[in-house]
């Protein structure tokens, strides 16, 4: 048996396999929608595998072996296709995995501590003009302060069109910031910088507006109260997910560095998914409730309700318990 004859015999099947691969790649199925053509594909694939396995025994030329590697790889990618997990698995992730992951994750606690700690500190520094003169002006800059004062000088009122449009804007803008914070978490330092920067700037704005007799202060708190809980928690969560990602690079726990990174990335995914959901909820709140002229108790009530909802989500759904999926 020489190679030329062998190749001549096998070439027909290889060509057929290539043709079927082409059809599967273009249309996701074979041209004849019969079970027979699918099993034919599997048969051809297996025999190509067998040819590759025996290639060295047959002493095939290297170029032919290279061809077989491509052919088997191509058929393999068609036979074992990506499984499209439906929407239900994402819902399951947000409702079941996320609270548990958040409840148990030390990185989320650290991120929350960093974010809310710096936020509170910056707020105290900015609100106390007599003890820390010029802090808010230095952090925010005069231009930003005056534009903030301008926008909150008038009592809140806007049209429905404005609400709808701003919801869209907040979904796009704020969620993007959260996702960027998460992505930079893999390098750890940029994530910490972004989080701290946001905490300090937000805290300074809150503190400045909380001063006695500040222009537009009342309207400012009318605006931020309703969506504050969702939004601030979402920022802290995305920072926590980013930290979880980056910590995997050096706290490997005995794994190889890339394996540890992968493991931590999978752990971070439910956290960032929850953060995205919170960002979207915050965006709708910020779009519809916050700028509306609703009475303040109603907005505060919404803030309390949303905080309670998150408490339920994090603590009740996330509390570690026994059972098959105990964490």
């Amino acid at each position: 048996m020489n190679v030329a004859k062998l190749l001549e015999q096998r070439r027909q099947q290889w060509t057929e396999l290539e043709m079927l691969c082409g059809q599967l790649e273009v249309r996701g199925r074979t041209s004849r929608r019969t079970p027979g053509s699918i099993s034919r594909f599997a048969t051809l694939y297996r025999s190509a595998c067998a040819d590759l396995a025996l290639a060295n025994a047959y002493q095939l030329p290297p170029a032919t072996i290279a061809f077989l590697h491509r052919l088997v790889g191509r058929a393999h990618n068609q036979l074992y296709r990506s499984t499209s997990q439906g929407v239900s698995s994402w819902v399951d992730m947000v409702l079941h995995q996320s609270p548990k992951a958040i409840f148990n994750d030390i990185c989320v606690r650290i991120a929350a501590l960093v974010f809310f700690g710096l936020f509170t500190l910056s707020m105290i520094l900015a609100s106390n003009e007599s003890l820390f003169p010029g802090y808010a002006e230095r952090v925010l800059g005069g231009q930003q302060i005056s534009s903030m004062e301008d926008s909150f000088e008038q009592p809140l009122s806007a049209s429905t069109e404005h609400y709808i449009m701003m919801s869209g804007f907040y979904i796009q803008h704020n969620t993007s910031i959260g996702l960027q914070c998460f992505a930079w978490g893999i390098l750890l330092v940029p994530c910490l910088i972004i989080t701290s920067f946001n905490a300090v700037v937000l805290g300074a704005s809150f503190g400045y507006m909380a001063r006695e007799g500040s222009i537009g202060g009342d309207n400012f708190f009318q605006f931020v109260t309703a969506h504050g809980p969702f939004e601030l928690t979402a920022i802290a969560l995305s920072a926590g997910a980013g930290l979880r990602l980056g910590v995997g690079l050096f706290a490997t726990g005995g794994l190889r560095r890339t394996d540890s990174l992968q493991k931590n990335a999978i752990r971070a995914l439910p956290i960032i998914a929850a953060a995205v959901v919170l960002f979207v909820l915050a965006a709708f709140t910020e779009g519809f409730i916050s700028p509306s002229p609703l009475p303040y108790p109603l907005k505060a009530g919404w803030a309390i309700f949303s905080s309670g909802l998150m408490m339920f989500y994090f603590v009740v759904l996330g509390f570690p318990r026994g059972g098959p999926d105990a964490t």
Partner: protein
Amino acid sequence: MPQTAPLDTTTEVVTPENIGFKHLLAGPFRRLPAYLLDFAISTGGFLLVVFFIIVVGGFLGITLGNTIFPAFAAAGMLVTYFAISWFYGVYFETYFNGRTPGKWAMGLRVISADGHPIHGKQALLRNLLRVADLGPGTTLAALDADNPVFAVLPISTGVIGLTVMLCSRRLQRLGDLAAGTIVVIDERNWALPVARVDDERVPALASFIPADYRVSASMAKALAGYTERRAFLAKGRRNEIAKHLAEPLIERFEFRPDIDPDLLLYAMYYRTFLADQQQEPVALGPLAGFSPLLKDIDAQLPLSPQQVPA
């Protein structure tokens, strides 16, 4: 991968059929055009959606005299922009078997590092982390500080992703490392190399190689490697390369020393891979009566194979 594996941009995948096959890894110069293509397609898609929304929303707004449709249109545009900029790659890689349109055009495919198809979570991770890979961002303000466009237009340098890709063994960027994926070349239509010998001196010379000579596996590999590449080499270079193997063979087969080394290796290749093992007489044609053997060197004209008309 064992340390003895050759330094190459391939990765081995073991299938459920217990076959190890090699995938070609895709480097940055193949992935960048795919990314740019994807960027162009997603931007174009977004502009199409915007156009559609403006036409429909504006039309409804004018005919109904209502401003709520333009507001919905604007919100829809922003949400679409958000969805496309973050989830374009996730969608295509999940539902089209690891391929975005750009990757499809460049013959690339994302698969798990262990050869399995990519699943939704991996696609999500590697696409979210692209932000970090494309960084650090900068602007062109250094070129012209007064140009307002240069000052705000964000430019992604991609230095982080490029560096990580060069340092990782399987050309993975940060997103790939975190998701455990690799990008491989999955091309259509790889032509099966056809081994055909059109030099009629070759079968003639091959028939003189002793029948009891067995070609070892490594020798067969070397012969095939040489023959597949000899078409790209000049005559002098071929002889220079072939000499090292041909000289001991000439001695062993007791051939005349002026046999063309290139031709001898070609004949060995022919005998190993192409010739029928059943000893059927070779039609020598115009070469009848010629012998390359050393003992026949005085029996006939000193005719070296190069001078034989092909």
